[in-house]
């Protein structure tokens, strides 16, 4: 009896242990070659110069700038929309509300849509429908498209739709974690619903909401599929200065280097160095999220 139990134990331990080992090995297998091959290529010039026309020489500054700009615009779009939706779902929707149930189901389904589909949606809805629609309304068709072409604005809005579920779900969680007693105290002092939300609920949920934002940003910064059709450029030797400009992007640059480069072997160091920069960016954003979450938790426990 005992022997059988301990053997089962041992087998389960071995199985779960090897699963952990496999996971760690995969991570090491990704990180080691990337940094071993990539790091020697990274210097100040690589981070601040423009790429050469064959993409292999020079630096990746336009891609770093483009990724940052894109992510910033995405954040500006997704945070108000996501937080407002979460506020509606937790604070305004009556319990067992049909609408809230439908919205929650939609949010969860949205999270499961493949990112390439978002790319096509962005092209169809933002570039062709909204962009071309604006052109038809405001400009003479003879001038050619002004808004109705791929641009950093449309890419960032597409990414905002993609990351919306992350922001909504984490914000909802954060709002729910605010103790009910605090809301009662606020209402009991003659606060309106909006005053209670703005002065009590949101300030107390701030760290949790911020975690969601950082998670959305790190997810959005690494996505390539949604921006292929909506604004990312293969090679663009100048920086975008207008919302209607196209831009270079780290993730898309990786794709371009590995598929479009005339000499694949020559492109390898640049490719790996670009991957290393992209990974560093997303990892550090995730780290910020982890730290924020830990701080929220410890504060919740202190109460």
């Amino acid at each position, binding site marked *: 009896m005992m022997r059988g139990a301990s053997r089962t134990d041992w087998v389960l331990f071995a199985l779960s242990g090897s699963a952990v080992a496999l996971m760690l090995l995969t991570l090491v297998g990704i990180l080691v070659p990337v940094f071993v091959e990539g790091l020697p290529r990274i210097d100040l010039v690589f981070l601040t110069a423009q790429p050469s026309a064959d993409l292999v020489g020079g630096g990746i500054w336009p891609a770093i700038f483009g990724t940052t700009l894109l992510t910033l615009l995405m954040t500006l779009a997704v945070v108000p929309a996501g937080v407002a939706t979460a506020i509606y779902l937790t604070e305004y929707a009556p319990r067992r509300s049909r609408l809230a149930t439908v919205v929650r189901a939609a949010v969860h389904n949205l999270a499961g849509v493949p990112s390439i589909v978002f790319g096509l949606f962005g092209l169809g809805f933002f570039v062709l429908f909204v962009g071309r629609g604006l052109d038809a309304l405001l400009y003479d068709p003879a001038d050619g498209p002004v808004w109705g072409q791929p641009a950093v604005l449309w890419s960032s809005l597409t990414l905002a739709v993609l990351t919306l579920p992350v922001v909504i779900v984490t914000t909802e969680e954060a709002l729910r974690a605010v103790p009910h*007693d605090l809301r*009662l*105290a606020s*209402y*009991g*002092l*003659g*606060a309106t619903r909006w005053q209670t939300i703005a002065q009590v609920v949101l300030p107390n949920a701030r760290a949790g909401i911020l975690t969601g934002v950082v998670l959305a940003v790190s997810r959005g910064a690494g996505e390539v599929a949604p921006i292929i059709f909506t604004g990312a450029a293969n090679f663009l030797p100048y920086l975008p200065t207008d919302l209607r400009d196209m831009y270079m992007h780290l993730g898309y640059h990786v794709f371009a280097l590995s598929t479009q480069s005339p000499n694949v072997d020559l492109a390898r160091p640049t490719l790996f160095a670009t991957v290393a920069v992209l990974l560093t960016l997303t990892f550090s954003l995730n780290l910020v999220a982890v730290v924020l979450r830990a701080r929220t938790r410890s504060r919740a426990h202190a*109460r």
Partner: protein
Amino acid sequence: MPADPTHAVAAPAAPVDRDAAPELRMETRGLNVDYGSSRAITDVSLPVLACRVTALIGPSGCGKSTFLRTLNRMNDLVDGVRVEGKVLLDGRDVYGSDVDPVEVRRRVGMVFQRSNPFPKSIFENVAFGLRIAGEKRVNVLAEKVETSLRGAALWDEVKDRLDTSALALSGGQQQRLCIARALAIEPEVVLMDEPASALDPIATARVEELIRELRERYTIVIVTHSMQQAARVSDHTAFFYMGALIEYGETKQIFTKPKKQQTEDYITGRFG
């Protein structure tokens, strides 16, 4: 047996010898409250006299807390609550169609069972109600915060650390801070839902002392599960059982000469 005063749980603290004919501050008439399909309060008509402490006593689940929350429309925040009958504040129905519940809660303040200070500084906790009412003048805020903290007998303990977090205070201090916070907006009536049930005996004694001081200026309705407490702090007592008001009267009379058998059974500890 009820004629024997020594049998009562405790004698009322202060001799009820305050100016004659107290005016009526609040009143319920034929109040029914339903949670979904179950009735929580049945046909309760109860006066709340100005500058008096009214205690609501009764066993758990008898509806005393629900009744309390009906007085300042806190029950509006719970889904599926239906109120019938009248709740009058200075003669006006607080459930009238032209009445804003937010306005009612500014005039009828509330202190909860568990102290619930905001995770803000002591000063900001007390100033909260004033700020949301639109008060921006710094000197007015400072003055009212001090008056309220003095009113809640907390000023001397916290005057040197108004900017520190309210969460660093002891449980008893937090509850007195919540009382100060409720007083700051100068309500006419203060509702207290078992305000001392989570406190140790010393902190409880301080809160009870405070309640006796507050009735000089405020009308207080207090829910308590402790009959001793009701006897110590209140002028009038209402005994609730199964959602109905069984008996209402001067506290001394309720505890020494109850008119109803159920009241007597409860206060002598035969059930509840």
